[in-house]
């Protein structure tokens, strides 16, 4: 586990508002389009996964902002707490939201519980991270959208009964839980360091979201048929390839140097 960030505000080229817009709007639009269009053709349920990728990007950006302050324990902890409450809130939202309002109710209830935990962390425990409340709201909200998005990929709908039968009972929900959490926490954790750049971190978020889409696509084979599973996984692999290529370009741009092999930098070089 990493020791956390430098204890200061992260510098960003995309503002938190932009990222929030991408996450909420992209996430919800993806989920609804996926659920509404998949009865016409099961392949289209992959749109839910696109929504999940948007939410992962947003969540990763929120982790980046809050973890820059240093959490006292590793970066992973915040992803695990967010997904822990996200999973309870998401299934609650789907259970009472009915066939249309489900994702929105889930999102709001996740954000509410996130706000409560953020408040407790600052006011009762006294962590003293100025953006803790906002970050918990954002990460929990993003977590719930990721969970519902990936559920939509697997079942083609976000109706409670279908999600329970096809995602929760066979246990795929455990994969969604941990992949959603890792998708949100890994990008910043993987790029932790004084020269971390926002665009590089977010390209990893897209790359990890795409892999989540691949696995969700494979899992959708049971309900959606082989064709839908294959197309979804293929779309995931394509997005993954593009995002990884972009990421590698960012690495080459940001690194001291990228070498095939070589000795360590010399004493003079380090001066």
């Amino acid at each position, binding site marked *: 586990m990493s020791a956390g960030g430098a204890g200061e505000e992260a510098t960003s080229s995309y503002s938190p508002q932009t990222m929030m817009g991408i996450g909420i709007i992209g996430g919800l639009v993806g989920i609804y389009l996926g659920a509404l269009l998949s009865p016409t053709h099961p392949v289209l349920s992959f749109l839910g996964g696109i929504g999940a990728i948007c939410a992962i990007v947003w969540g990763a950006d929120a982790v980046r902002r809050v973890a820059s302050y240093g959490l006292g*324990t590793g970066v992973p902890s915040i992803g695990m707490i967010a997904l*822990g409450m996200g*999973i309870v809130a998401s*299934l609650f939202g789907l259970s009472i939201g009915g066939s249309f309002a489900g994702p929105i109710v889930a999102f709001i209830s996740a954000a509410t519980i996130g706000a409560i935990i953020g408040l407790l962390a600052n006011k009762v425990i006294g962590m003293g991270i100025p953006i803790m409340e906002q970050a918990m709201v954002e990460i929990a909200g993003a977590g719930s959208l990721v969970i519902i998005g990936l559920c939509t990929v697997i079942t083609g709908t976000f109706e409670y009964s279908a999600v329970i039968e096809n995602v929760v009972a066979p*246990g795929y929900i455990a994969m969604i*839980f941990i992949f959603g959490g890792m998708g949100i926490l890994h990008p910043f954790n993987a790029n932790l360091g004084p020269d971390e750049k926002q665009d590089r971190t977010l390209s990893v978020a897209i790359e990890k979201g795409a892999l989540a889409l691949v696995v969700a696509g494979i899992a959708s084979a049971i309900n959606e048929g082989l064709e839908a599973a294959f197309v979804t996984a293929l779309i995931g692999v394509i997005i993954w390839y593009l995002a990884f290529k972009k990421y590698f370009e960012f690495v080459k741009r940001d690194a001291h140097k990228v070498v095939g092999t070589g000795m360590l930098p010399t004493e003079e070089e380090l001066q």
Partner: protein
Amino acid sequence: MIVDAIIANIEWLALIVIGGVLISWSVHFVPVGGAPAAMAQATGIGTGTVQLAAGAGLTGLISAGYMMNVIDNLPLILASGAIGAMIMISVTMIVGTLVYVYGVGCVPASAKVKFDPLTGDRQDLYVSQGTEGHGLPTVCFVSGVIGGGLGGIGGSLIYYALMKVGIAATSAMTSDVVGLVAIFAVGIFFVNAVIPSYNIGGTIEGFHDPKWKKWPKAVVSSFVATIFCALVAVVAISQLGGL
């Protein structure tokens, strides 16, 4: 409809909250030194608080889940959850001791107390230079076992209570109920494992550590957080009945 579900399950709600509070309290007992302990630079187990508490508690959840499948007896389910977690954490600690003593060659010693409160052994002389103790002296080991046990009880209590809600809603132990209840128990467990680890700043030696006295803060936070998690979880599970 929602209010009905909550009122009908008020006793299970209370059990879930107690379970969450127990988990939160249990984390304060688990001797974790975080990253420095992995370099024998701090007393305790060389890993993160959340991870070890989750590892132990969820192992207990596996034991409790197995027990609940064959028998409906709350004390026995709680005991088996506690034992599962205690076995996991004590095996981890004994092998950790083997590595510290024979792999790294340092004596288990605490830097927070001068004498081990349980054995009375002198500690400060055995702390090597430039470190804050290393390894697992007896007091840490016992504290860890207590922590594992409490975490196992907490996790099993949540699982048991949610399971009762599910059985009441669907009148059977179907795979839907088991899957939903188990993942909810895992989710609530993680929430209550992270909150105390923020409270102790990632490292603690056990119940003899001055940081241990901070537990009321985490327990209050977990109490409030678990109430909300429990409310939504109970409603979501009782909706299974209408499917």
